[in-house]
């Protein structure tokens, strides 16, 4: 391995953090210098990610690549162990890409109270936390990255957010912290039993917990991850956070942050505690499908466009969790596909909502009043396109993940009740009808019809250059992933087989 390969992953993770420092060194008045710094830092990190993707050995996606494993806190045996395999890679690339696009989008879109310098510094810090979470193979390191995400997001919501930002920010912070405390206890329990924080070692030699202890430890992990996903009934922080967060905050929250929870299940909970996972799986599946139906119903009741999309997010993550709960290769491939697809699609939906808000100064569906296809034809067409992607139209990215998730529920892993999971499958299927229902209803009320009088004389500009630059990659990827799903499945499958080997079948 050449030096650059040794350092590529570390660079991808820490270049943004370095960017944070650099930005804070930039004099307060020089806003554009701060923007350029942020663009360079995220751009270089993305380039490092692309380099990794190009050099990645796809025939061997189950083994760790670009690995660095050195002692870190020797007192507790924590190590700086980062690497990636076929499960991490798509999520790392997603994080790097979406953050880069967020910086581009932000160029002219800084919400009140402005201050791009600090805003971008926080976004970059957030990127290091997100990317790091997907590559950490040491539990303490994982935990540090995991928690690192909290503060920047707390400030993004709490400072640049909407009218009720303070409540939403604290709720986000405390709720996630509450979950991660249990997660940490579970980590420590593993360490206690197995004497290591190393995720690879723990996956190879599971800590030999007694069955009831294992269930409890899994419960700790479950709370930490499920709150982050978020799964019903731990989801109530999400709509508030999304409603109040600035556009870029919502995009990053939906596109990347939520995946940390689902990733945690796949990376840690399942491989380290396979037996407990089998016992928990039906319950996880149950919460997943309740979440699908419940969130879809809540979507029908929403008056705020952004809150509607936030609830739809909960439903879509239900499909991801259903895939994971089946403990099958099909299901977990579906889950990772679903994570990436949801990142592209819902990220894009939040971008669009932000741009709509910027033009109309409202997100109330009733106030928008329809006719956007007339007023802002390109923006409205994009909203329609991405809504169809979100409701699972084949040949777009939303379809393969949801299809495979339900497919896997038809035949869950050995030891899981086929009848139970087939019931889940049917419930999820009903959910897809509801999803189509609320999206089409939303489109009817926002896009279609005639332009209300109050907007007729208001001058509005359709999609601008920065928006095009930030959105075209997401749109193209939404299309490519739908037409050629192998682009993701080919990367994940090998690594997923490694995870599911423990579950037989």
């Amino acid at each position, binding site marked *: 391995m050449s030096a650059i390969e040794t350092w590529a992953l570390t660079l991808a993770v820490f270049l943004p953090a370095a960017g944070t420092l650099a930005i804070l060194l930039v004099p307060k008045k020089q806003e554009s210098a701060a923007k350029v710094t942020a663009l360079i830092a995220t751009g270089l990190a993305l380039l490092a990610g692309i380099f990794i993707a190009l050099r990645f050995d796809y025939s061997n996606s189950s083994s760790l690549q670009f690995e660095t494993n050195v002692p870190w806190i020797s007192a507790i045996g924590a190590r700086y162990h980062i690497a990636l395999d076929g499960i991490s890679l798509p999520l790392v690339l997603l994080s790097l890409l979406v953050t880069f696009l967020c910086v581009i989008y932000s160029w002219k879109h800084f919400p009140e109270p402005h201050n791009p310098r600090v805003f971008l510094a926080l976004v970059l810090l957030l990127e290091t936390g997100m990317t790091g979470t997907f590559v950490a193979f040491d539990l303490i390191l994982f935990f540090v990255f995991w928690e690192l995400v909290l503060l920047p997001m707390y400030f993004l919501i709490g*400072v640049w957010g909407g009218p009720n930002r303070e409540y939403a920010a604290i709720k986000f912070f405390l709720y996630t912290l509450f979950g991660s405390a249990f997660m940490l206890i579970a980590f420590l329990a593993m360490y206690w039993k197995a004497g290591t924080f190393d995720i690879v070692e723990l996956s190879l030699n599971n800590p030999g917990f007694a069955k009831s202890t294992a269930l409890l430890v899994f419960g700790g992990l479950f709370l930490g991850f499920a709150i982050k996903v978020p799964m019903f009934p731990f989801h109530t922080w999400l709509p508030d956070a999304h409603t109040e967060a600035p556009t870029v905050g919502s995009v990053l929250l939906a596109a990347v942050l939520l995946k940390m929870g689902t990733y945690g299940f796949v990376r840690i909970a399942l491989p380290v505690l396979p037996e407990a996972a089998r016992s928990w799986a039906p319950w996880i599946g149950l919460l997943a499908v309740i979440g699908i139906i419940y969130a879809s119903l809540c979507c029908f009741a929403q008056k705020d466009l952004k809150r509607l999309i936030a609830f739809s997010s909960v439903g879509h993550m239900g499909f991801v969790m259903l895939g994971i709960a089946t403990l099958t290769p099909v299901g977990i491939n579906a889950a990772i596909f679903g994570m990436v697809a949801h990142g592209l699609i819902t990220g894009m939906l939040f971008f669009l909502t932000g741009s709509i808000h910027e033009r109309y100064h409202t997100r109330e569906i009733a106030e928008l009043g329809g006719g956007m*296809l007339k007023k802002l034809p390109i923006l409205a067409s994009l909203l329609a396109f991405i809504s169809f992607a979100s409701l699972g139209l084949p040949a777009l990215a939303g379809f393969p993940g949801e299809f495979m998730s339900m497919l896997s529920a038809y035949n869950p892993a050995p030891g899981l009740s086929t009848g139970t999971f087939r019931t889940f499958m049917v419930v999820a*299927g009903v959910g897809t009808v*509801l999803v189509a229902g609320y999206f089409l*209803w939303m489109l*009817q009320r926002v896009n279609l019809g005639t332009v209300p009088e109050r907007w007729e004389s208001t001058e509005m500009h359709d999609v601008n250059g920065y928006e095009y630059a930030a959105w075209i990659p997401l749109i193209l990827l939404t299309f490519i992933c739908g037409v050629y799903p*192998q682009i993701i499945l080919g990367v994940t499958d090998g690594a997923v*087989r490694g995870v599911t080997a423990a579950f037989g079948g």
Partner: protein
Amino acid sequence: MVGALASSVSVASSALLGAAEAAAEHGEHAAAVLNGPNSTLKLGWLVVALPFVGWLLTLFFGKRSPMRGAIYGVTALGAGLLISIAMFFQVAGGAAPYHQKFYTFDIGGYEVSTGFSFDSFTVMMFAVVTLISFLVHIYSLAYMKDEVRFTFFYATLSLFTGSMLLMVASDNLLQMFVGWELVGVCSYLLIGHYWEEKPNSSAAIKAFITTRIGDVGMMFGIFVLFFAAGTFDIGGINGLAASGGIKHGILLAGATLLFIGVIGKSAQFPLHVWLPDAMAGPTPVSALIHAATMVVAGIYLVARNFDVFRTAFALGPGGPANVVMIIGTITMLIAALLAMVQDDIKKVLAYSTVSQLGYMVAALGVGAWTAAVFHLFTHAMFKALLFLGSGSVIHAVHSNNMSDMGGLRKEMPVTFWTFLIGSAALAGVPGLAGFFSKDEILHFAFHNHYYAVFGVGLLTAALTALYMTRCVSLTFFGEFRGHGHPHESPRLMTVPLVVLAVLSVTVGSLNFWGMKGFGVWIAYAGEQHVAEFDVVAMLAGTAAGAIGILLGLWIYYWKKAPQGLLDRVAPFRWAHTLLMNKYYLDDLYIKGIVRPVQYSLSKVAYWINQKIIDGVVNGVGVMTRKALAEATYWLDQTVVDGFVNDVANEAGEAGGALRRIQTGKAQQYVAVAVVATAVLVIAVVWAVR
């Protein structure tokens, strides 16, 4: 020269497919293309690809292109039609089916392959779809000339055609499902073409959601068959089903679930409610999508997977009653009755389409594969003709309602004569297309002792003749009741009508007894063949049609029927009310399902969310905050002594540097939380050491 063309075609195709395998395969076969026994079949992919290319060109460059972008669709479909005709003659000449593989991918241990399969059935569908689509492309040049979003209309028309062809050509269920859903979204876009008016966009939503309910069933059916056979491959699944390789119970579940998709897409009872509303779209769309092509996707699905259905339901002479047969039979009758009372000419044709689709489904349900497929073929011709004819009339009188029409035969002779031919073909007048295909279905049902299907089929045939006579009488005879001066439509519209009228006369004879051309070209290997000719069935069918026509003339043309029957006779009045309210099915769905989900259940769920689930969260939050604050106060005072205050102050400064928006309290909570976590971590780490 031919070789050069062939290799350039193959290069283009592999570029399009983007798969190395395809490139290799095409390289090997490059020389064989265009001169092998199934050479033109190898161009089938091009027929599918062309409309997609046309779609993209129209969408992105349409407004700056000749004919406002219509040129791409017209060219793509024209070329597609020529290739399809060449393919048609090739399979008619006995060419072997051609199978084209694209790429395979792995979804967690299961290999999924994509590809096209061109056999005589596919090729027949290609011919129908490209022909009708091409004619609709031409016709719309005039019909849509002054309408909004002309370019987008053409783009979507092309996308629809490509998706339909993709579905028809698929060699596997997954890819078929992709095409199946894509035609659905095109249908949504085109039904809602005039989306300024809310009823139109609501009709589009209704169509999408209703068919999606069916699609979910179909998707589960695909799952069942996939796990039973270990593949999505249609040939593989059907082969296994026919040879008994799939347990009967599983096969039955799979077939029934697939059939739910048919009920949605092919507008069968009880999900037929979307199709009449779909008439909100422009009339050429109704002709193409909601009469001739997309709605027969369900028929195609059953016919394509007929081994699955035949084995699952034990179809054949003397077989038991089954869900396919029952649903088809109910549908043909209830829809024909609804067609009787419509004033909107397009709704007459829409219910007629539902009814005829019921005919095809019932035919499949009794095992009459060839008859069903043949009826699909002939129906496409005369129903597209009728819709385009109605469009010509609507174009002239600016109303959909027959109460605004009347006496148009003089002003619109071409439209009148072609419409009359289409109606006669639909009514089953001997010698025309509908007669032969309908007769075959009745004949098959009668001969195999499915007397219920035969009886309802006869009744429906009579009703069909009756409502079409009513329709023609109200539209073209009597006095003109509308406004303005209607005149014949331009050539671009009448020429397609003439072409379809000629076909409506001639295609029936493709399967004329004795010639049996159609049944030989397009045959299903497992079909039970019955006696070629049955005078009872034929006479009964002809008589039913004749009775219907005479009754129609008596009531609507000669006007000899007693007037005011509806007012005087209570059962007539009740029946009329029932039909005018569409059997109250729409009310049931809207009031029983849609509104509750939209407005009640959703409110309940959201109330639970805000008051109960979030109530608990907030309650815990408040209590924890209080407890922590007290604990921290205690810590602050007794243990740490000022440390927390420092942290809180620092956090406060950090926040203040950004903006002083937060109350000091909020920052304290955060500080408390951070400290609490830190304390927890330190404590545990200490303990572990």
